[in-house]
């Protein structure tokens, strides 16, 4: 029982990370219709920049994440301008390859600057809680709480605020959107910026319980794609449910079946779900 509760919290913390990383990706997909394979690299870059401010310059933790998130916002905007904007009329194959090119670049850049060694990020958040016999570190509780707050704010923003709705509008018809006065390229830039920002927040939260390396985004990348497809591309609730569901499935299968299955479970679930519902869990069917 203690093990179960322990793993439940571990799974929730992991779910928080997955969600934060996944929502950005799903938003970008919705607006730009591109599967941004460089997302994991943005996450990695976010982690390194947070590290730079926190450890190298000694800026406080929260501020370091904040500064890094803003910087990554700029990187995201730049990525949109330099890579995806010129490709806006190309098929998605081209985006994927361009994104892979960008990913290679970011990884090589990080290695050139910070080296290939693992780095460890320290945080002021220490200690933990004892919940029903399970030992939960404070960092993980922070992850869960932050994830929930950010997700709630974002959901509110998209559904209620008119700015959020512009994102939805562009997802559905770019020409229609520009005719009602929305600037698609502005929204595209903001969305990519926002997704990089969210990825950085995720990275800043996880880095203390894991290590930094130029390839830290790779493993996450595949999983996050599984999540947003599982939830239905471009669907916010889909990404949230998918993120937590896959994280819990992963932790629990690793605990009660085997860790190798745990590693594959995300993809097995994905295959199973798509076999039954080919458009993911949360997509509305619409007539031509």
């Amino acid at each position, binding site marked *: 029982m203690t093990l179960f509760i322990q793993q439940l919290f571990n799974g929730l913390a992991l779910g928080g990370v997955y969600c934060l990383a996944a929502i950005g990706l799903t938003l970008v*997909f919705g607006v730009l*219709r591109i*599967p941004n394979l460089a997302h994991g690299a943005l996450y990695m870059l976010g982690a390194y920049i947070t590290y730079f401010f926190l450890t190298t310059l000694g800026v406080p933790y929260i501020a370091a994440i904040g500064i890094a998130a803003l910087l990554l916002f700029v990187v995201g905007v730049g990525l949109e301008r*330099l*890579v995806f904007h*010129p*490709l806006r009329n*190309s*098929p*998605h*194959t*081209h985006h*994927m*390859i*361009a994104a*892979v*090119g*960008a*990913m*290679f*670049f*970011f*990884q*090589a*850049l990080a*290695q*050139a600057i910070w080296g*290939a060694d693992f780095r460890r990020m320290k945080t002021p958040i220490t200690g933990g809680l004892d919940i029903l016999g399970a030992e939960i570190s404070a960092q993980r509780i922070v992850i869960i709480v932050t994830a929930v707050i950010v997700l709630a704010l974002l959901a509110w923003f998209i559904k209620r605020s008119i700015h959020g709705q512009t994102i939805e509008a562009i997802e559905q018809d770019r020409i229609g959107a520009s005719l009602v006065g929305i600037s698609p390229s502005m929204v595209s830039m903001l969305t990519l910026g926002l997704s990089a920002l969210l990825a950085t927040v995720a990275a800043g939260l996880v880095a203390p319980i894991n290590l930094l390396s130029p390839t830290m985004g790779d493993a996450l990348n*595949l999983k996050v*794609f*599984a999540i947003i*497809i599982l939830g239905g*591309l471009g669907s916010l609730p889909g990404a949230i449910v998918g993120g937590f569901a896959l994280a819990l499935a992963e932790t629990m299968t690793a605990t009660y079946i085997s860790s*190798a299955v745990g*590693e*594959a479970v995300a*993809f*097995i679930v*994905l*295959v199973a779900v*798509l*076999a039954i519902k*080919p*458009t*993911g869990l949360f997509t509305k069917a619409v007539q*031509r």
Partner: protein
Amino acid sequence: MNALKNPRLLGTFAVVVLIGAAPAVFAGENYAMRVITVGMCAAIAVYGLNIILGFTGQLSLAQGGFFGIGAYGVGLLTTDYDWSFWSAFFVSVIGTAVIGYLCGLIALRTKDEYFAIFTMAIGFIIFLVISRWEAVTHAHSGVNNVKFPEGAGIVDFSSPIAMFYLVFLVLLICIYITHAIRRSSVGRTLLTIRTSEDLADAIGVRVGFSKQLAFAASAVFGGIGGGLYATVVGFIGPDAASIDKTFEFLMFILVGGMGTVAGPLLGSMIVTFLFELFQDFQAYRFIVLGPIIVALVIFAPRGIIGYLGEFIDRRNRRRRLAGMRRSPKETGPDGRSAAPTAETMTESGAGTTSEETK
């Protein structure tokens, strides 16, 4: 021999002859021969990708996985089970076809990006199985001493040149099949699906079935490429099935030109050599290569062959227009030069080409 008047076919021929003559130049250079031969194995898999992606428009990211299945099939059967290369090769290719077909059954219920990511998941599961199923695949230890093909006392395939020509021959067959599919109604079927599945459905195309076949065919090419690769390199590890392989294949096809006959081959060769060239930069080569990839996609989105094709199309159209002006009766109201056509259907239509040569 009308075909020779068609500049596209001529181009394909030229590329093929050029590569076929490579051993004459590089005979003593094991390294160059190896790079070219391995590149050709990849090119075979890329021809598979060309069918599903270039013709049908579905981005399959499982190609690396199928390549791995072919490679491991040959690798494991010739070593742990001591089969002859040829029987192992045959069985592996059939096996890839079956696995490809089964995956296709589910995969093709999905569309567009779902299909892409779904096949990526399939590819990743194949990779996980290969890299984790210690008891059968030896996981990271890999498969050592894969057999050379048996030459029946006539050819000795341990010679790099013999191996080169074996792969080259298979590659030629794949290119021919690609060409044959393209100009047939099968090719037209696939291309209609690429443009609009709904419309294809409405004119009686068996969309699901055709996609299924295309997917299985692409898997088979992947398996063939992988099987040859295993015997060429002699040792295979799980990286033979990794997602990086898939991305490599994608790069090859994009640089060469999607949906074209010569594109995959040309792309494979050029990018392979580009990669080798940049090896000297070691870890930092991707600081240069990354942006080059991005730039290629942005500035040459239709690949090298795509560009040439566009050029030829424009010329043909100009000629035809000139011809039409001579016979005023035929001049349509739409006498302006058309938008660059998609490289594919225009050429594939038996109509256009035979018209030209009549």
